[in-house]
């Protein structure tokens, strides 16, 4: 029962780790996308201003005295200086012939089709540059002339911008990851919560509670709960079958045992040799023991059955004790023992009369058996806090202190009862009955004098 489950991994940890992994991948993706986008925007804005500059220069191109000339507007280059500290280069080429500017700027391939802008990333004077070339056709007397203006700028500003954005994007990605991580932990916890709830509800159950689990569970857990319910139903069936079997067996044994005992007593009267008489007496004692055990087994089976289907009504515990004592009195008197009852009429309790009587009978039976001859057995009914306590005390040897904890287990007998007839079921029956009524059984030894006490605690109704 107490074996630790064979654990391999944890759903919550696995879920958390997977979600964290996903969050990390998404954060990295976010970073990469932001950077790609920022790079695109930075490049576009630089391309735009370079285009504007090239266009302004191109617009100033004209034919004067049959020659192509350009009158570069001040703003064409100063506009580049407005947005950044980057170095600026330009070149004007007419029909492939260098006209002005920086002659050694990278070559551009002539534009094709409608597109009259070209963008190029290259190197010039030891630095990376971005270059835009624009082309326009002028009409000369000798025919059309193609003028190409290239404007280039170093990438320092773009690099700085991207570095700044990359720092910010890294912070954003990290923040995203942290937020996602927190959410992942919460999500994993909420995902395993139904499992924990089920485990709690099952482990909170009493030992006899084998009802099916009714609480709503998520669809994914339905097969598990179904299996559990089926398993418990089988267990319950198997338990009740074995109880029935035991009851049946006890019942079948009791009648032949009674016949056997009568025959043995008749035989005892007839034989006279002392050794034969001793053997027969020993036989009768064994028959008594078997018969009593069978009786208790029957009682126990009955108790087990009735605890599932209590017939509850209001009970005056004092009256009930009185009746039960009356029934046991002949047996006690045979052994020269006195049964006495004390107490006032207690508040009523709700319970099953037959069960409580049966439990009390078993305890009295025990007491009568263990108490020395001529001693008294006291039964008291009293109130203690919200409990009604029915206490049976004898003057026997008492319980061994080390036994008190486990005496109520089935078939367990005290160390100091080895030589007396008994099956060990009496206290078990009593405890089961007390628990079935929401109470408990308490075992103790009398203070200042010999004897053991068994107390039923029933809650007041």
């Amino acid at each position, binding site marked *: 029962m107490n074996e630790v489950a064979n654990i391999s991994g944890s759903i919550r940890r696995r879920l958390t780790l997977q979600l964290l992994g996903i969050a990390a991948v998404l954060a990295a993706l976010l970073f990469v996308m932001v950077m790609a986008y920022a790079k695109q925007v930075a490049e576009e804005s630089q391309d735009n201003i370079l285009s504007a500059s090239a266009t302004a220069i191109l617009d100033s191109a004209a034919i004067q005295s049959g020659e192509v000339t350009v009158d*570069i507007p*001040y703003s064409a280059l*100063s506009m580049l*200086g407005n947005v950044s500290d980057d170095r600026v280069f330009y070149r004007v080429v007419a029909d492939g012939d260098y*006209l*002005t500017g920086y002659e050694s700027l990278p070559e551009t391939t002539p534009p094709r089709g409608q597109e009259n802008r070209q963008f190029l990333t290259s190197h010039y004077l030891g630095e990376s540059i971005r270059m835009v070339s624009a082309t326009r056709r002028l009409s000369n007397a000798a025919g059309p002339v193609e003028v190409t203006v290239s404007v280039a700028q170093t990438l320092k500003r773009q690099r700085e911008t991207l570095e700044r954005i990359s720092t910010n994007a890294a912070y954003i990605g990290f923040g995203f990851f942290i937020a996602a991580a927190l959410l992942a932990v919460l999500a994993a916890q909420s995902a395993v919560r139904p499992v924990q709830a089920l485990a709690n509800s099952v482990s909170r159950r009493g030992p006899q509670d084998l009802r099916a689990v009714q609480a709503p569970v998520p669809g994914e857990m339905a097969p598990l709960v179904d299996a559990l319910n089926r398993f418990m139903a089988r267990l319950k069936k198997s338990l009740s079958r074995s109880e029935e079997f035991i009851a049946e067996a006890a019942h079948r044994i009791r009648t032949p045992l009674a016949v056997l005992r009568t025959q043995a007593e008749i035989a005892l009267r007839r034989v006279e040799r002392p050794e034969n008489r001793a053997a027969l007496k020993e036989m009768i004692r064994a028959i008594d023991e078997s018969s009593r055990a069978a009786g208790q087994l029957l009682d126990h089976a009955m108790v087990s059955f009735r605890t599932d289907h209590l017939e509850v009504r209001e009970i005056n515990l004092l009256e009930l004790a009185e009746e039960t004592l009356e029934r046991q009195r002949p047996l006690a008197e045979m052994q020269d023992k006195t049964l006495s009852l004390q107490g006032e009429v207690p508040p009523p309790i709700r319970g099953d009369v037959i069960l409580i009587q049966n439990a009390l009978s078993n305890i009295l039976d025990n007491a009568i058996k263990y108490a020395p001859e001529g001693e008294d057995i006291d039964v008291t009914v009293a109130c203690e806090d919200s409990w009604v306590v029915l206490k049976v005390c004898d003057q026997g040897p008492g319980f061994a202190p080390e036994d008190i904890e486990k005496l109520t287990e089935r078939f367990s007998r005290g160390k100091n009862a080895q030589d007396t007839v008994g099956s060990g079921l009496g206290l078990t029956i009593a405890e089961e009955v007390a628990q079935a009524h929401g109470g408990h059984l308490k075992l103790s030894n009398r203070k200042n004098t010999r004897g053991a006490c068994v107390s039923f605690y029933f809650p007041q109704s």
Partner: protein
Amino acid sequence: MRILLFPSVLIVLVASLLSAHAFEIEQHKIFPARYEGATLRIISNSDIDIFAPMVEAFQRRYPSVSVDYTVVSSTELMKALYDEKQVFDVAISSAMDLQVKLANDGFTRPHSSSVAELMPDWARWRDHVFAFTQEPASVVYSKSAFAGLEVPTSRQDLIATLRNHPERFQNKVGTYDIRESGLGFLFATEDARTSDTFWRLNEVMGTLNAKLYCCSADMISGITSGELVLAYNVLGSYASARAANDPDIGILHLEDFTTLMLRSAIIPVGAEHPEVAGTFIDELITAYWSKEGADYYPYPKLDRSDVAPNLSQRAIRLGPGLLVYQDNLKRQNFLREWQNAIIQR
């Protein structure tokens, strides 16, 4: 006219090509260090007399640095660094466009200055060009020769005055020969970019047979000697220095706009002592831009509240815009137009 001029331009070009293997040095001086140490080679278009206090102050703080100071014109400076790749540690020039071109075309080293936060953003470019002066382009005139005339306050006024009194100004007006002077060219292009009055003014000066000069100092000397009555686009910093000794010199900051030139320093790419050069540049920056300044700072400091209540002062912006007038075609066109306007016979 154009046909006559073209050969002369060619001659100038050919002459400069022939002398390309050796740039022309105007002055040279070595400031020896008290202790053995590195030699900082400075090429500059600032006169030794003006710049010496700066160098001496630097040597007081760093006594182991000798300074080799070479004075050239701004165009020769460009030639030395751009064409001949001569070895210098610091280049100081008033020709902002040439400084920017050097930096843009990769002839300078970056310098991450520890005192950069002292200066406004527009006073440096790309951690390569660092400005340490603001010097106005002024009109300088002779007070005695102007007697009886109202002093003009704008270019419109100036044009009217010149036009209405040709007898006084004929042959007595001076300005930069922008073919020779890098600074003159810079001022002229800024003027042309800012207002159309520049061209009309040049036309008027052309009709008055204006004299052309290489440098501000010569124009101021012209005023003091009586050779000139008025000079246009003279470096105000030089003029105020001379006006202190000559009460006849009058300085005008025209109210329609006054161009401010920023003298700047760069570290050429071939510098042998770039760290010392950086320290020297930091020293220049601190001397001008720090609140407390420095008593050895050789240029007059611009006090904006004093000169221009109407915020007409426009500092020339460092940046790629300055490359525009360095373009061959643009430059040729501009010079041609300028010559057409100012040289009328």
